[in-house]
């Protein structure tokens, strides 16, 4: 199924929850959606018989300046089609629903996004840091991040 057909199906079901569809190269065609609807949209994408996106290839985080972006790359082994879903959340309240219960892949990917960008995935069972130490302060991949002077008595700058 082509990306614009997937977009039509989603637009019919969610209306205003679907914000934008972009098809031009060089990037893969993507669909921008409302962050609050992300669980329902992903649920439809996974379980609807003509879509059947059974594989979350990647879940990434982005710093877009005043907001944070989350990108879902989805693939269907059944229909061998793929789609990219994008959404943004404001930096002050970076909360959006977790898709951990749809794809188990999202468990660690969401923990990593939380670890480095600080998005709060509500509904995640175990949203703790995955790479950095548990007592680390701040979210290092954010563009306004300043590296700490000291960690456990060790000087960090060169």
């Amino acid at each position, binding site marked *: 199924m082509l990306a614009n057909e997937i977009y039509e199906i989603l637009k019919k079901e969610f209306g205003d929850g679907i914000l934008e569809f972009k098809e031009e190269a060089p990037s893969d065609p993507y669909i921008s959606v409302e962050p609050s609807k992300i669980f329902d949209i992903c649920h439809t994408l996974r379980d609807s018989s003509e879509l059947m996106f059974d594989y979350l290839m990647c879940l990434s985080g982005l710093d877009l300046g005043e907001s944070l972006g989350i990108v879902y790359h989805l693939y269907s082994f059944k229909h061998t089609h793929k789609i990219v879903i994008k959404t943004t959340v404001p930096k002050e309240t970076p909360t959006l629903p977790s898709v951990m219960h749809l794809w188990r892949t999202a468990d660690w990917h969401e923990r990593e996004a939380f670890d480095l960008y600080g998005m709060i995935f509500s509904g995640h069972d175990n949203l703790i840091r995955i790479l950095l130490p548990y007592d680390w302060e701040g979210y*290092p991949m954010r563009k306004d*991040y300043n*590296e700490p002077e000291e*960690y456990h008595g*060790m000087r960090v*700058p*060169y």
Partner: protein
Amino acid sequence: MGLLNRLDDPFEGGGIILGKVEDLLNWGRSKSDWYLHFGLACCAIEFMALNASHFDFMRFGTIPRTSPRQADFIMITGTVTLKMADRIKILYEQMSEPKYVISIGSCSNCGGPYWEHGYHVLKGIDRIIPVDVYVPGCPPRPEAMEEGMIKLQKLIREQALFNGKDRIEELEAKKALKI
């Protein structure tokens, strides 16, 4: 050490070896160093080559140990993150004296390529534990690691055991001599 045969019958065999106990002990210690390997990054891949048959690290008398209690020296091979630095400190403290440290590769020497933007990297292992031998390179070839091992053997061989000298003092004297 010197070989002294009986002066009246120099070729009789069964000669006497004269020397210091210290030298004998140091000779033995320098030829049977057991090590705790702490492989963290690509330097550890080079270290695998060093351990394999082509370079044969064991001919130096080194045996890899999995416990710090049984190790004479620790090899830090790779990027030391701040999260791992706490663990290295614990492992080093668990080792029994006399203990030595070989720091292998630019990352553990000084932070390497992460020196500027590595918010998570310790800029040099010598900030937390004393280092005896530094091996530069990114990553160093196995030959360079062998040279590091030879340097450590030399350091052990010339170490004072019985005259009560403080080891730090002695290391500083060694540094001045550029050994």
